[in-house]
């Protein structure tokens, strides 16, 4: 495999292809007929996925730095480059993106009935933006892609969404924009602090920042990423966006857009502001927010009448595990956070697909409108149950590995946090099982549910790989863990290498 890839000069072009092929697909979709749009879009996204798969072999973790790096000056006068690279953290995010994008597009074949060309064009644009976010090693480039993802999502929610789609879309957009624009100011601050006329990742790493500066900048970055994650209490855009978004939108939103936040934590927040990240108050605040997210979101999820909203809140809870894992500042915590990110992408993506299938069949998302589906659609029920179990972190599924490591890592440094967070394990059952029961089990007493069709072949093709991944990662996560470890290690060393002298408050911010 590696030889084959080498002979194709794979490493030279793959990262660029991953970003620009969706753009090519977008154009193709726009010039094609509406009827063929979905197939064309799927073909392109599948092509991108297949190409991205080569990374699995081509990428070797090495010393944890970036691989496959390339950099071309873009806006020279500002020191901005079109610089791409991949490491043990981003490779999984990229693969997750290419995978779920293709799955989401395939999953939207029946769901999207109007304005198909526009829809698939936007989906491909979204994919391009997200891949760009994960591949960019230039801060400016990263920011551009980070923002770029908002537009397609805004339209996807706003045009193909439900009743309150506009409210949800605008809320999503503005919420995210507040954070990211403040981050832009912070980026500029670092840019001028670094003294190097460059937006390269390395240049930013070398910026000399006092503790006080770090804390302010941390706040700006954390707000941007925290909204994306979303961290309690910045989460209220998420349920609305999820409920209103069409299925493929929800899938991509849950699977990858949220990851941009936690990815930002790992990629930027920790390495850039090691002093702030180790500040006890900062750590405490982040951990408390993470834990609050876990418990609070689980509680709120449990009483949702709308299945999609329920799953949306579970996202908040899951991402809480990532947050505590990251801010525990232990290897296990960070790796656990990574695995939760992957696992959540897969399992929640699958859940949204399943809910979408329910909606396609019954045109309702209210839990109480279902019941006894297990009898009418056993395959559907099986997939649903497995996915739900992966979501609540049953050992043997992907969810467990991540949550276990995240909690373990947290316990190493912050036992109390871990103890409270561990109750999330109970609350996960508390929100998920009643839904499973009320949808799949109980009496099949509503006549319209009796004719609930089971999974079609296409739907099996969609869900099959997802379920397989959940179990694969749950049973044999080693290939994932060993690929990400060096990079995570690098982040951690960067943080720990800059342990501040306790008691120094830091010099005042630069004069105006």
């Amino acid at each position, binding site marked *: 495999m590696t030889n084959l890839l080498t002979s194709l000069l794979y490493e030279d072009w793959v990262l660029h292809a991953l970003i620009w092929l969706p753009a090519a697909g977008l154009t193709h979709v726009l010039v094609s007929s509406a009827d063929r749009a979905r197939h064309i879009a799927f073909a392109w996204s599948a092509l991108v996925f297949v190409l991205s798969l080569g990374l699995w072999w081509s990428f070797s973790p090495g010393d944890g730095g970036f691989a496959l790096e390339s950099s071309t000056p*873009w*806006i*020279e*006068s*500002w020191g901005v480059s079109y610089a791409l690279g991949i490491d043990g953290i981003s490779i999984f995010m990229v693969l997750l993106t290419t995978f779920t994008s293709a799955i989401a597009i395939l999953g939207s074949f029946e769901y999207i009935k109007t*304005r198909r060309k526009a829809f698939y064009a936007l989906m491909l644009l979204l994919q391009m933006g997200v891949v760009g976010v994960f591949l960019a090693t230039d801060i400016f480039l990263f*920011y*551009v*892609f980070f*923002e*770029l993802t*908002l*537009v397609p999502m*805004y*339209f996807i929610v*706003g*045009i193909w969404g439900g009743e309150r*789609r*506009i409210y949800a*879309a*605008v809320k999503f*957009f*503005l919420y995210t*924009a*507040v954070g990211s*624009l*403040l981050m*832009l*100011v912070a980026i*500029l*601050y670092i*840019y*001028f602090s670094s003294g190097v006329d460059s937006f390269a990742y390395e240049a930013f790493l070398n910026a000399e920042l006092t503790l006080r500066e770090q804390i302010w900048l941390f706040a700006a970055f954390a707000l941007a990423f925290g909204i994306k994650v979303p961290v309690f209490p910045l989460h209220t855009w998420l349920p609305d966006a999820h409920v209103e978004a069409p299925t493929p939108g929800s899938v991509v939103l849950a699977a990858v857009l949220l990851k941009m936040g936690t990815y930002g934590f790992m990629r930027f927040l920790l390495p850039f502001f090691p002093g702030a990240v180790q500040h006890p108050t900062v750590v405490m605040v982040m951990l408390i927010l993470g834990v609050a997210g876990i418990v609070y979101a689980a509680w709120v999820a449990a009483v949702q009448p709308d299945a999609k909203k329920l799953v949306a809140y579970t996202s908040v809870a899951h991402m809480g595990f990532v947050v505590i894992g990251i801010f525990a500042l232990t290897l296990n915590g960070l790796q656990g956070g990574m695995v939760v990110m992957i696992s959540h992408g897969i399992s929640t993506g699958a859940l949204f697909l399943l809910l979408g299938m329910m909606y396609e069949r019954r045109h309702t998302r209210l839990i109480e409108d279902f019941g006894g589906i297990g009898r009418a659609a056993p395959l559907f029920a099986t997939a649903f149950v497995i996915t739900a179990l992966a979501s609540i972190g049953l050992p043997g599924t992907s969810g467990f590995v991540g949550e276990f490591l995240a909690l373990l890592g947290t316990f190493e440094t912050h036992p109390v946090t871990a103890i409270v967070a561990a109750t999330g394990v109970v609350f996960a059952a508390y929100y998920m099982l009643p839904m499973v029961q009320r949808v799949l089990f109980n009496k099949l007493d509503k006549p319209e549910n009796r004719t609930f069709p089971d999974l079609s072949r296409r739907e099996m093709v969609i869900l099959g790989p997802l379920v397989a991944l959940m179990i694969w990662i749950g049973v044999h996560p080693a290939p994932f863990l060993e690929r990400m470890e060096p990079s995570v290690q690098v982040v951690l060393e960067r943080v720990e290498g800059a342990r501040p002298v306790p008691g120094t408050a830091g010099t005042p911010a*630069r*004069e*105006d």
Partner: protein
Amino acid sequence: MVLDYTSSFHYVLALLPELVLSAWGMGVLLVGVSREQEGGGGQELGWLALAGLAIAAVANGWLYSGVTEEGATAMIAVDRFRLFANWVFIIGAALSIVISLPYVARQRLQAGEYYSLILFAAVGMMFMASARDLMVIFLGLELMSIGVYALAGFNRRDRRSAEAGLKYFLLGAFASAFLLFGIALIYGAAGSSNIHAIAVAVQDGTIATALMGPGVALLAIGFAFKVSAVPFHMWTPDVYEGAPTPVTAFMAASVKTAAFVAFLRVFLVGLDGLYAQWWSILWWIAAITMVAGNVVALVQSSVKRMLAYSSIAHGGYLLVALVAANDTAAAGLLFYLLVYTVMTVGVFGVVIAVGNQTEENSRIEDYAGFGWRQPVLGVLMTVFLLSLAGFPGTAGFIAKYHLLLGAAQSSLWVLSVILVLTTVVSYWYYLRVAWYMWMKEAPETAGAGGRITTPFATRVVLVVSVAVILLAGVFPGAALDLAAGSIDGLRDLVAGSGVAAGP
């Protein structure tokens, strides 16, 4: 070649674009008078005016291509800064004329006067950009203003247009008086109206401080009025709403540009030494302008009026560059103005198209479902809006980022934060248009834009504008270098020559 004004022909050369355009404007006026209005609705006059702009552009290009001046004290500057601004004016005027073509015809306006007034106003703007003397600035400003007063009230059949003209005229003249008083005081304080001489005087400390302070303040007020900075903005929404839409576009884009260019030259070159005294005033004006412009835009139901407030907000962003007062910010200001001109005229172009060359359908509800009925126009409008909002991928983002860069360089963090937060506010009203266009269904009775016909020329111009916006959003390098190059040496004047010289 080098202009050393040893020959009086050098003066002609130095003012070549302005002279060409002035003459051409009179030509257009004459041709217009000599023709009966019939058939083409004066479109050929529009094309004629465009040809004049093209020639002016050639002249400007000639100056740009290597003509330099001796020293930097002449009343008329021949520097990149001016010439870059001239490009912007030419582009703004040309785009405005193109979107005017069907409008003027449909509204049966007197084409000759209309197009020549645009040209004259453009000449005024050019003078403002080229002036190195406060008096020339005043003259240029008045030349521009008088033309625009007339343009704003041009549609005599429309009482809104008349009202807009009157308000603009009264308040504009009122503000001019302040500006003029400021000029007088500065002239008295520094002993000269030459910007360079003022700068030197400030540097040497040979100014009468008691006059200088109020003078600077009044001058700032005069400019603030023209760039519609809060609280001198009150005329803007009314005039923008009432004026014929192409004129609104021209005002929003070019008038603002001209005022900012002059503002920049006066304050960053002439009054740079007094930065400590004026920056906080401008800081507050910038902050209030950004907040008020964006916030009030939220509650507008007329797209035109909303865009008026949005242009106020953009003025606020641009003021940040003045407060930052460094080369990056200055280059950012120029770049922003260029981009702003293109996108503003573009967005009004779509508004005209939606209004079907009339003043109708300017309520936001009229845009419901518009995108799906006119996908091309819809996409164009969306890009214009995103660019106005400063969204990555568009030139608007690069421009806004450039301003931020300048602000950051001067450590204006609070102002930067205000800028980005008000930008978030602006997202709401820009997106609102987008959501009406794409996310709402048109009412069944869709008279609105049901049968929109957009002339080919307008379409081409809009598409090209969008292409430019996207291109400059993705590959801004060349334009940025151009803007940065235009600032090169501009402010060296202060340190450059110690000789106080007359005009």
